């Protein structure tokens, strides 16, 4: 079974580290972090993401750019930790 590749885009470095750690702790989930639209698009050339999470600190324009740039689900992540993270990803990937 292939990994679920998850891109997380946000500005808060410590929270991003926490979210990536939580994602990577799940079997067959792999998290990738970016803080800008440009970084996200660069990563998208190397990985076939299954879902994109929008983290804290992005402007509306950045969020809109990301929503229009990906064909996979692009969802707002709320809460900043493990509380809602897994349910958000399960819902996005249709589990």
């Amino acid at each position, binding site marked *: 079974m292939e990994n679920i590749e998850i891109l997380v885009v946000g*500005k808060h470095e410590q929270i991003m580290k*926490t979210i990536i750690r939580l994602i990577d702790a799940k079997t067959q989930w792999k998290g990738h972090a970016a803080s800008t639209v440009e970084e996200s698009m660069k990563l998208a050339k190397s990985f076939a993401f299954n879902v994109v999470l929008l983290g*804290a600190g992005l402007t509306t324009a950045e969020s809109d750019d990301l929503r229009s740039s990906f064909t996979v689900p692009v969802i707002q992540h709320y*809460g900043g930790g493990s509380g*809602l993270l897994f349910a958000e990803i399960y*819902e996005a990937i249709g589990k």
Partner: protein
Amino acid sequence: MAKTIFHIANSRGNVDLGWLKSNHTFSFGNYYNPERINFGALRVLNDDTVAGGKGFGTHPHDNMEIISIPLGGGLKHHDSMDNIAVIQDGDIQVMSAGTGIFHEEQNNDQEEDVHFLQIWIYPNQLNVTPRYAQLTLDKSARHNKLQQILSPDANDQGVWIYQNAWFQLGDFDKGSQVSYTLHDKNNGVYVFIIYGFAEVEGQQLHTRDGLGITELDDLKISFIQRTEFLIMEVPMNF
């Protein structure tokens, strides 16, 4: 005609980590139930018990309105904005996590458990500046009447959050009744019984049962036994 969704107490997601015992009304952490994600803007309703001397280590939050209501014992809070406080039964605490905040929560007692409700509401604004507040409530002000403990308005009673939500606590005697009129007819109401036995919209509710109600203007609650309860009025579309 009002629509209802009933969550009986023992249908909640149960977590027992030894130091933490929690019942999740909605999907949270490793508890995932696609039928139990949220009730409108109400996303988390956790009924937590933390053992003496234990607690949640430092962890982050962002973009969420987080409300804690102690039901017994004391909970010590320390966050990255240098707020250090203890909340106890009768208090309410609120954090707007916004762009990001780290905090830890510890039982303030080395021996006795602390019991509290942790409630998360989706915010109506993203990336606000994080804020923390707590308030000591007059518990006598909810005996046989509703006590507003949360609203969207900093000048109204109780604490405030970034959402068009209103919370009320009540402690009503057996045989009494109360009516609640919604602030916004597009909102829904979630009634959670902290302790007791009541009837709401034809549904009998016991301790820790919850009932979500939509498409109503007014709510009538009848108390079959003495009952402490929480009413959460939240937007259904946000």
